[in-house]
């Protein structure tokens, strides 16, 4: 298509309000999306020096922490396609005012727009709610609207660990997922399922720590409809052209939404690659990337985790290992035992459609728009990743043909 400036690149208030009215979603998501659209015609990504970011970071910390502190050893962090990340060491006395210490921390700041536009407030709350329940980095400070940093950001603890073995454990496997190797696999599997079960069974106290999340009602489809609307809204705000597949998928998802049977905290990207582990102790040290978290249906995570993109075939060449850790059936059986929650095949199918719907929107709409408007520090990465959308969209076509 002609890559000319269109209404989506310079939206009017009327355009924004029309989409908000057609696709109502959670209040915090509405705030994030509306902010994105109101700032859209403004500047794109402007390069920052490390020193500029550190100056702003100092402002954020000083406004929240009254003691003396020094930021040391700041450096850019690699990894991910959506956020700007800087690691640093903070010399301070801690919140309790104890002895001077050096605490490794990380700043996670969004660019003017991301391939997934999400709430730093929700990310901060989700990680904080899970502290003490599963391994997560400690959260320190939040700049939800970019009052101090150039854009919304969070500061959390820097956790040591790796996302994949530093040495290839076996060469006989096929597929693109992380290969932990036959020895580490069962050790990771046990911790993985235990963590997932805990995330999916939040206590009322933990839910109370999530004020930026709408708490869904069991027996109702209202929350699911809001979630489907969230992504349709993103589609309407970001797409360069229409794709009939999205309209068919949206109609099916609304019509077939299943009443919620249990309120879970859903991570949204629970998979190999999104946790760190210590290679010596073989213990998971932190679960990362909570930006897509919602209160909703556990099957969203279960379906995501067992998806083809994150697994691979075992050394026998026949057994598919979900997330590179367990055969899918065994994974789901063990999850049921550990969590005490059931796994419903129809809900898995429903979320196969939902997750692919969300992924195609991210790749074909937001990936295109953010790159087109020069909104990120990694436009070339975002445009590159957009290519994944073709295969996922083809898969979504096939699934929809089955279920229609």
């Amino acid at each position, binding site marked *: 298509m002609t890559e000319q400036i269109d209404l989506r690149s310079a939206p009017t208030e009327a355009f924004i309000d029309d989409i908000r009215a057609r696709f109502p979603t959670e209040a915090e998501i509405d705030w994030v999306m509306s902010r994105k659209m109101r700032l859209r015609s403004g500047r794109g990504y402007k390069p920052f020096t490390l020193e500029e970011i550190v100056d702003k970071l100092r402002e954020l910390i000083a406004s929240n922490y009254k003691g003396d502190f020094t930021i040391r050893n700041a450096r850019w962090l690699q990894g991910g396609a959506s956020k700007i990340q800087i690691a640093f060491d903070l010399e301070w006395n801690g919140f309790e005012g104890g002895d001077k210490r050096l605490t490794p921390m990380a700043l996670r700041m969004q660019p003017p727009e991301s391939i997934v536009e999400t709430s730093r407030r929700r990310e901060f709350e989700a990680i904080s709610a899970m502290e003490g329940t599963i391994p997560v980095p400690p959260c320190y400070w939040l700049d939800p609207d970019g009052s101090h940093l150039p854009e919304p950001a969070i500061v959390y603890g820097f956790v040591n660990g790796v996302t994949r073995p530093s040495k290839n454990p076996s060469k006989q496997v096929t597929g693109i997922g992380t290969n932990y190797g036959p020895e580490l696999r069962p050790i990771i599997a046990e911790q993985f399922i235990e963590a997932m079960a805990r995330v999916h069974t939040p206590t009322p106290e933990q839910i109370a720590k999530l004020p930026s999340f709408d708490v869904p009602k069991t027996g109702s489809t209202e929350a699911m409809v809001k979630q489907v609307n969230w992504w349709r809204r993103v589609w309407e705000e970001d797409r360069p052209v229409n794709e*009939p597949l999205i309209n068919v998928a949206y109609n099916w998802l609304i019509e077939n939404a299943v009443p919620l049977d249990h309120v879970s905290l859903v991570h949204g990207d629970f998979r190999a690659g999104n946790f760190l582990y210590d290679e010596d102790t073989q213990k998971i040290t932190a679960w990362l990337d909570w930006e897509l978290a919602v209160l909703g249906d556990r099957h969203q995570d279960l379906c995501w985790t067992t998806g083809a993109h994150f697994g691979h075939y075992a050394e026998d060449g026949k057994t598919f290992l979900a997330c590179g850790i367990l055969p899918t059936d065994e994974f789901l059986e063990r999850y049921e035992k550990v969590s005490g929650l059931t796994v419903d095949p129809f809900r898995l199918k429903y979320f196969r459609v939902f997750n692919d719907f969300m992924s195609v929107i991210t790749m074909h709409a937001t990936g295109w728009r953010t790159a087109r408007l020069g909104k990120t520090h990694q436009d070339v990465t975002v445009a590159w990743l957009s290519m994944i959308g073709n295969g996922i969209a083809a898969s979504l076509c096939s699934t929809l043909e089955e279920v229609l």
Partner: protein
Amino acid sequence: MNPGIDLRLRVATNAMSNVAAQQKDGGTVAAEQLHLAMATVNQVREILPAAQAIARGELNATLTMAREIAAAMSDTGLEPAIETAAAVEAKGPSTPIEMDDARADLLAAVCDVLDTRKGDPNYKVIARIALVQNRKTLDFGRAAWLGSGFETEPSEVARLEKMRASLFNN
């Protein structure tokens, strides 16, 4: 849709000038951006000879979709958009941009029908038509960018390679 040739070249040069060149202290981030930028430029250069065949194939599949939907359901109002797109397809040496624009208008008309006629008894029939033809248009992108290594269905690679060869031979 995927970013076009112009956009991909632009982001590649932006990455080099705005990010990689600025971050002298950037280390691995800058190296990764430079690597992807160069790979992008090379891929775009490789695909350029097939740009017209891809745009024509996508327009043709979208026209088939619209015609089949118009035949399966009454009063869709698709005829004017079909006529306009068919004229662009028939006129011979259209540019990829002309063909993409005609396809975009046709897709908007089809999606309007899918959204407004979902209560129609024939809705499932037209939804299936849309899915089949949508997948055909996706194949052009999958075949064209096969070298990116993002094809998620290994059993489809041989078919897509054949399609890719055909696009470059036309």
